[in-house]
């Protein structure tokens, strides 16, 4: 298995170089001048040109590229063009908040979504199934920022159980959980809607298998059939889509971060894009690529835990 892991990490390096190269050139082709954004609309053209020179933006693009890549190779991701703060420290400051939110949403989504999906499959074509499928559809259709604002109205204003500003800065576990609750519920419910549908489909497929019919014929209780024989086989496709969705979730949490005012990678990257902060964007891409690679690797390794027939060499 270690060989498998090393091979995947090797591919990750190639992926990283390709992603960075593409991002490097795409952001510089985009219209919008970082020097103008930094200095504001009252700055003269002379001031803007001087700042471009100071930031090294007047150099040929290929020179900027090799300068950047050689920095990445030694762990120097540069400083933000807007704030002047090191990219790596800015990213590391907000990364824990993103990971915290993402995994809380994942756990909530799985804890709610898997049982509901199984229940929907077992109750196929009954009122329970229809209601669960409708709820799942609503969850998938609702924009994250709409559900976020509704949650705030309900549980921060009318029932003041949670704060509006989920700063993630609480020092005690209780305070952090309090801050995390609403944003995690917001993302978790969306994830639960997704997992419910996938779990339902996977369970229906498994329920139609011959070994399930055999187990029923042998008189094994329905509960035992579901838990002991079906559930584990259902998890392979569920783990696949959760792994895929996790990568998307890390990036798409920006709306939740904005509404709940949480720090996070999503907000950082959107802010960097609007401000044409090239170095911050490039640094963010390194992080995202690594995260997606790690998540995909963990997903693949999880298969082996679920299905002992899967071996890695």
């Amino acid at each position, binding site marked *: 298995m270690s060989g498998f892991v090393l091979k995947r990490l090797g591919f990750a390096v190639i992926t990283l170089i390709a992603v960075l190269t593409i991002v490097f050139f795409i952001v510089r082709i*985009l*219209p*919008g*001048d970082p020097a*103008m*954004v*930094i*200095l*504001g*609309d*009252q*700055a*003269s*053209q*002379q*001031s803007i040109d*001087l700042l471009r020179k*100071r930031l090294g933006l007047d150099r040929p693009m290929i020179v900027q590229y090799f300068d950047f890549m050689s920095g990445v190779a030694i762990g120097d991701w540069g400083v933000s063009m*807007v*704030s*002047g*703060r090191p990219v790596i420290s*800015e990213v590391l*400051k*907000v990364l824990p908040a993103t990971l915290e939110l993402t995994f809380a949403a994942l756990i909530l989504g799985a804890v709610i979504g898997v049982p509901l999906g199984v229940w929907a499959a077992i109750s196929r074509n009954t009122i329970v199934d229809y209601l669960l499928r409708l709820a799942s559809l609503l969850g998938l259709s609702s924009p994250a*920022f709409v559900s976020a*604002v509704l949650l*705030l*109205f309900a549980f*921060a*204003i009318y029932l*003041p159980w949670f*704060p*509006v*500003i989920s*700063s993630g*800065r609480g020092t005690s576990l209780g305070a952090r959980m309090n801050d995390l609750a609403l944003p995690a519920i917001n993302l978790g419910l969306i994830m639960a809607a997704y997992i419910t549908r996938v779990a339902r489909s996977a369970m229906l497929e498994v329920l139609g298998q011959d070994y399930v019919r055999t187990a029923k014929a042998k008189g094994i209780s329905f509960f035992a059939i579901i838990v002991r024989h079906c559930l584990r086989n259902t998890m392979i496709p569920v783990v696949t889509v959760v792994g895929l969705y996790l990568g998307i979730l890390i990036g798409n949490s920006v709306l939740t*971060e*904005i*509404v*709940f*005012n949480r*720090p*996070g990678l999503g*907000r*950082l990257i*959107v*802010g960097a894009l*609007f*401000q*044409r902060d090239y170095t911050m964007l490039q640094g963010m891409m390194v992080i995202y690529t690594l995260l997606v690679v790690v998540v995909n690797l963990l997903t693949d390794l999880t298969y082996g835990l679920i299905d002992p027939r899967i071996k890695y060499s």
Partner: protein
Amino acid sequence: MKRLGLKSTVLATATALISSLGMTSSIAFAKQTTLNIGMASADAGKLDPHIATTTPDKGLLHWMFNGLVRITPGQSNPGLIEPDIASSWTTSDDGLTWVFTMRDDVECHGEYGNLDAEDVVFSLRRSSNKEQSSFSGDFAAFKSIEATGDYEVTITLSNPIPSLLGTLVPYHGGNIVCKDAVEALGEGYERSPIGTGPFMFAEYQPQQYVRLVSNPEYFRGEPKIKEIFYRYIPSDASRDLAFQSGEIDMIYGRQDQTWVERIKKLPGTKVAIMSPGEMSMISLNKTVAPLDDIRVRKAVAHSIDRERMVMFKGQDVALPAVSVVPEGYLGYTANVPKYEFSVEKAKALLSDAGYPNGVTIKAIHTSLPGMLSTMEALQSLLRDSGINLEIEVVEHATFHEQIRKDMSQVTHYSAARFPVADTYLTQFFHSNSIPLKPTAVTNFSHCDVADAEIEAARTEPDPDKQLKLWATAQQKIGEEVCAVPIYQNLQLWAWKDTLNLGFEVKGSLNLSPAITEISHFTE
């Protein structure tokens, strides 16, 4: 060990309970000393006062810095300038030499010591250096800045500038920085600014807040408010809800009538509508057909119903614009050509110009909702006169880049400037400010009809003559229809009525209410 008897235990418990009640009572009545402010921004930008130009950054730095002089807190009128770091000043008869006598009790934040003339000289030279400052253009007439005593600074001008004091208020380049701090911190200065103001930088959390603490050495006295959390809350809904729930004491408002009406209904809330307003104006590029024909430009002017535009925006938050210089600015005049709303006149002008069936003009415009809604409303008004305004919507940074590349026939701009006519006229209507020139700023109309008046007014020592020159400039620009002013969008803030700022707030150059050493909570 002797155990406490039951009686003693009960007595001790009762005493503890009573004491805790007393403590609770005193805590309940202790006044709040931490101020939480919600700002419409995703994060801090550059916190160097000689570079920061965005509303959120300027609003924050406002409370950390002083100038040689300042505008009375709560006001934005440059006629209300008073001493700040300088206790007095004199000027030579020819207006070219200004001598400022400083206070000797101004201390830099932290361990950077007493502020003296060397610091002020360093600061003003830094402000006037185009490599270090976004505002170097404001100091073009500064010939020399010297320390002529430990606490005396002499500024010599190459030509008289009657608005010199305006350049020295803590707004843009007038913010005084401490030499030792700038030199010690280097590039780190913009991440932890050091000033002399009532509040000092303490902490920055990315995407969350900047924390300021009171300056115990402040020369006007230690502030009653001990801590300010300047929180970055980009979502309007979240900011309003946080204010409603009590997590935030003061918020930056959305420039919208519905916002004013909703927030006013919240109990215990004070809403401030502040000047200077941001002038919303459309510049018409008179070098490009069909706008090179003055009749077409006049037709555009006649097509715009300002009263309806103000109603669209909100009567509490917008004022109809008359001149190309915002009302309230020093040098503003209402005596300019007025193009009353008349669809018939607009159509007649277009027909004379050879467009009896209408004309198409194009605009590149930002996707910012506040500005885009205005442009869409204008589009609808223009359509009635047969003027088809095609709007190409682009993202905000792209908008700024493209209009500065002179790519738009019609440019909608909304901005506030230092409230003196010269600033607005120079940046928007002097030929030096035309896009693609090295000295370009924001003259998107390519206007050049009032250059002589603008330049003469800038150096005119007689205030009455200066006002006349500015008035003439506005009249000429109006006659040429370089631009059509629409309305002035005022600044909106709200705060809890338990927060007493210490003065009535009518305006603020830095676009955030002044929070000084006398501001305090009443509960």
